[in-house]
């Protein structure tokens, strides 16, 4: 028991990831807003709003307003069709500077929801008389626990607990393999070669899982199964290099020689991986779609807010631990096999 406490810890962390990661609801938000008229100035217009996880009917003290250059225009009527569909009537408005309006809808349950650049107008005139108002928002924020609502990501945000830790686990296992390759070359002890080999094999499983989860996520958010992105290419090439490592191992029958040659190649491949994943994406950072690159905000900024953060760290630790758990089992199988072959 004393030696296996980390396995129990790992199972707990993964259960937390699975249950909390999949069951914690997403915060309410506004997905689309459609205006009945192209121009906001020619007459009163109606805006149809589609929300997600919202409570347009259940929420009390509800209201809505449009925002243009810091000036608020309240809706004259608020008709909730159901909890996620809403129709709003607005008086004619002339935009102050930009022809784009943000929409804000509020009630007791959801708090204040804001959709940036919700509707635009074809009007070219600016200024004029704008019917301003001071909306009476009772509750600014909803108080129950939920993941943040982000455009484009929506529910796929939960993939954060599965896609990102796969790469962390792969890199952790590869680093462990690299360290053991070095240890092997120091004393030519075949024990370290077995360790390195099984660590690489396990890391490949996680790499493939990372590619699958990433591909699914890319389809949902970027619209394609595979996009041309430095990080994708870098990881794909790393996987190729380590697949080549397994081919190389199978090509050499002699144990000692195989261990030496594959250790040398593995060290080579690891250094190249550092260059591919760590250095090159930073140089051409402008053309990566991943957060933290090319003007996209990093996880540390606002994407990873305080509700996501603890689950994210738990999932990373949990997946790394299960990666090492799988690796120890594989190593034990290999040891038993070699023992009986002798």
């Amino acid at each position, binding site marked *: 028991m004393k030696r296996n406490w980390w396995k129990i810890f790992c199972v707990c962390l993964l259960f937390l990831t699975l249950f909390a990661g999949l069951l914690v609801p997403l915060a309410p938000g506004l997905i689309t807003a459609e205006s009945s008229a192209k121009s906001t100035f020619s007459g009163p217009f109606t805006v149809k709003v589609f929300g997600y996880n919202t409570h347009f009917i259940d929420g009390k003290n509800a209201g809505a307003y449009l925002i243009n250059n810091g000036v608020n225009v309240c809706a004259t009527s608020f008709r909730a069709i159901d909890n996620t569909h809403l129709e709003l009537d607005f008086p004619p408005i002339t935009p102050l500077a930009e022809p784009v309006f943000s929409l804000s809808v509020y009630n007791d349950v959801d708090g204040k929801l804001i959709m940036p650049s919700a509707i635009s107008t074809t009007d070219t005139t600016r200024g004029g008389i704008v019917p301003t108002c001071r909306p009476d928002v009772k509750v600014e924020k909803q108080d129950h626990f939920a993941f943040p609502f982000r455009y484009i990501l929506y529910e796929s945000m939960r993939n954060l607990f599965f896609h990102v830790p796969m790469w962390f686990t792969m890199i952790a296992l590869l680093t462990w393999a690299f360290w053991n390759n070095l240890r092997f070359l120091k004393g030519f002890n075949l024990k370290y070669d077995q360790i390195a080999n099984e660590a690489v094999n396990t890391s490949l499983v996680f790499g493939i899982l990372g590619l699958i989860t990433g591909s699914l996520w890319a389809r949902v958010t970027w619209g394609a199964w595979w996009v041309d992105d430095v990080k994708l290419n870098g990881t794909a090439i790393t996987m190729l290099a380590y697949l080549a490592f397994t081919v190389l191992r199978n090509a*050499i029958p002699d144990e000692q020689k195989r261990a030496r040659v594959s250790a040398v190649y593995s060290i080579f491949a690891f250094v190249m991986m550092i*260059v591919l994943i760590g250095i090159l994406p930073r140089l051409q950072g402008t053309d990566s779609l991943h957060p933290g690159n090319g003007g996209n905000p990093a996880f540390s900024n606002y994407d990873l807010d305080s509700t996501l953060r603890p689950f994210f760290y738990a999932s990373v630790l949990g997946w790394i631990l299960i990666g090492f758990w799988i690796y120890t089992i594989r190593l034990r199988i290999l040891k038993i096999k070699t023992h009986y072959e002798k």
Partner: protein
Amino acid sequence: MQLLFQIISLVKREILLEQRNKYAFWGLILFVVSTVFVAKFSFQVIRDIPVWNALFWIILLFAAVTGVARSFAQESRGRLLYLYTLADPRAVLLSKMIYNILLMVFLGFSGLFIFSFLVGYPIQNNTLFFTSLLFGCTGLAVAFTMIAAIASKASNNFSLMAILGFPVVLPLLLASIKLSKYAADGLEWSGAFKYLGVLIALNIVISTLAYMLFPYLWRD
């Protein structure tokens, strides 16, 4: 100092060997020429700079695989062992590296001549392009020499060489292609410096790694 003398005489030996069977060298040149002809007949004239660039570097990549793969495979096991006892094994590796660098730079520039003669030459900043060609070819030679040493330890040498080599040289190739793109667009040096830095750093990293790891590799 002794290492240096050993390297010099071993490089001389490599050149002498090459002179003795010239067909291998001219075969390599012919390989480049025929690949360029294939490119010529499939594309006619290439005006699109990225395509020109990619094709040129892919031809060089394959030339490097075929050219450098010989360096360890052509020697019999006994002769290699004899060399390792005569000189420092690292000297053997370094001499092969230097010889392959000379070979690849020659192949690169002659390949460029044939390629631009047949397919077109869209480069505007010549010095930048030649620098990138120089360091790109050096890098290819250095990396493939090490890979050849690894692959020669296993049977089924040639395909293994490609499988092992391509992922390893890819960062190098990407940096070279990026630099050539800068040169083709006629951009100034300032923007290209970071890629040039990466290219030179990769050259240094790969050769240092090879130098450090070869002592573990050569023993049978």
